[in-house]
């Protein structure tokens, strides 16, 4: 039986106060907090078996290597990848996507090819493709959204013979929208195109199975799923990886080196040049254990309950505009909103003074802001340790802020 109060005890940071008020942390789409098990794993590594991996013959190095590779196995199981060699550790989801753009994109994408994206992409799944398109002469195309922030069916016409790659988010970091990745992947594959899924939000909040999605690439990061910063994952199909040359070169990724030439190491080592982020990868493994202990189905259900409650409570405040689908069953736990013409930064500062942490800004999705006709929004986003009472505190905070700015808002709205 899931008990949010028990879960909260695992997160030391939730005990702290901000400006004299209990912390209400609602910025999980930016980064999540870390349970003690993750913090302990970091400490244990540095106190007990800090050593470089894959090279030393001594005990510490063997222990560190085996824990590092165990983490890879945990990731494999978590996303149901067929093999461990398909799991590459990077610094973050952004680096994972860049790795595909550089190592796969530059070899496979040609002038006249099309890359299909959506208007709701985070800059990390947009800018690398802009760079690639400029270099190769490929054309970017964008699937639009409807008034509730759901993906339009445009992709059915857009994906065709010219499509080389479809790259899209599984769960929008602004709208919360969950996209029909499998359907899109099926059509893309019919036309011989590859499919990259930005799973930065989805993998952290719902069960994700790469075989079920049938995607060719999946990018996500540890820090949004209770793990440390500095670790990302790129999952890629084995046959694609075997054909890919590395983006970074140097130590560990080699098989044989002479002064003039080098043969690449096997996958995934080929893509992990240099000493990796050993401690954080191992602690990421602890985060996966923690999430599996709760169960991703439970995380998803908790998210849905909080999101439905937030949409209801915030939607009842006069002057609040909500973005994204109204149905919590088709969206994730990120709720973007605005209050009148109060700038989200003013709202964010006011809420912070009440101890409430939200995000305010363009959420690294400026084209989506343009599409929504705003420059910025506020965003509350939840994870497993959030509770309904915190959404009540948020709602009170918004009304308190509205009172504070008072006629400054209404005067401008009238003007």
């Amino acid at each position, binding site marked *: 039986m899931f008990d949010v109060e028990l879960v909260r005890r695992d997160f030391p940071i939730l005990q702290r106060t901000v*400006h*004299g008020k209990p912390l209400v942390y609602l910025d999980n789409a930016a980064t999540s907090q870390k349970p003690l098990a993750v913090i302990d794993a970091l400490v244990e590594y540095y106190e007990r078996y800090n050593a470089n991996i894959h090279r030393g013959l001594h005990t510490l190095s063997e222990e560190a290597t085996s824990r590092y590779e165990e983490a890879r196995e945990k990731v494999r199981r978590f996303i149901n990848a067929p093999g461990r060699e398909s799991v590459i550790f990077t610094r973050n989801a952004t680096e994972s996507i860049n790795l595909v753009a550089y190592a796969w994109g530059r070899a496979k994408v040609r002038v006249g090819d099309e890359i299909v994206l959506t208007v709701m992409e985070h800059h990390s799944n947009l800018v690398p493709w802009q760079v690639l398109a400029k270099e190769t002469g490929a054309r970017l195309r964008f699937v639009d959204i409807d008034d509730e922030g759901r993906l339009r069916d445009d992709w059915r016409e857009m994906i065709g013979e010219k499509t080389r790659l479809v790259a899209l988010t599984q769960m929008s970091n602004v709208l919360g929208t969950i996209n029909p990745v499998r359907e899109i992947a099926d059509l893309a594959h019919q036309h011989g195109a590859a499919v990259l899924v930005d799973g930065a939000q989805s993998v952290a909040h719902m069960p994700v199975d790469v075989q079920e999605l049938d995607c060719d690439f999946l990018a996500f990061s540890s820090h949004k799923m209770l793990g440390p910063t500095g670790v990302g994952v790129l999952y890629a199909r084995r046959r694609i990886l075997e054909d890919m040359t590395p983006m970074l070169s140097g130590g560990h990724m080699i098989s044989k080196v002479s002064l003039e030439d080098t043969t690449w190491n096997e996958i995934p080592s080929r893509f992990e040049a240099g000493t990796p982020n050993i401690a954080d990868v191992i602690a990421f493994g602890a985060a996966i254990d923690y999430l599996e202990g709760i169960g991703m189905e439970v995380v998803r259900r908790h998210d849905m309950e909080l999101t439905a409650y937030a949409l209801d409570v915030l939607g009842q405040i006069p002057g609040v505009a909500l973005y994204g689908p109204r149905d919590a069953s088709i969206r994730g736990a990120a709720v973007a909103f605005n209050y009148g013409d109060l*700038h*989200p*930064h*003013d709202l964010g*500062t*006011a809420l912070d*003074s009440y101890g409430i942490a939200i995000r*305010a*800004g*363009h959420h690294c999705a*400026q084209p989506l*802001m343009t599409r929504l006709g705003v*420059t*910025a929004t506020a965003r509350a986003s939840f994870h497993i340790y959030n509770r309904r009472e915190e959404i009540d505190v948020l709602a009170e905070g918004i009304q308190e802020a509205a009172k*504070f*700015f008072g*006629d*400054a808002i209404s*005067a*401008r709205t009238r003007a």
Partner: protein
Amino acid sequence: MPEPELDELYKDLILDHYRRPRNRHSVAEPKIVGEGFNPLCGDEIAVEAHFDGDVLSDVGFEGRGCSISQASGSMMTEAVKGKTAAEAKALIDAFTRMMTDPDFQPSDGLGDLEAFAGVAKYPVRVKCATLAWHALLDLLSRRGEVQGEG
């Protein structure tokens, strides 16, 4: 440690300028325009000035953004109107110091602009307060280019 209070940041004067921005208008030709953009939030401000010799005889601004950035634009235009380019530059420096220098003592003739002193306690909002001033700096440097003083 005393907690920073919301009304220390949002002084009445700031909210008043946010509510009723002054000099939100275009100035007569010939004019020089400077721009400021904050990539963090997408806020932007354009400042324009008409010069009589070395004096900014009319100054106006346009833009969109939070209360701090817009009030700062409004109060900046009031502060620099009628000043020489060199005086305006000195005011930019003093304002920037107020925002970034913890040892700043308000004695540099900032007047009403001291209302923004509380912003320095909110590091993420400093860029909001200085946005209009960056635009003014941009304007002055463009004037330098126009006059070949570059």
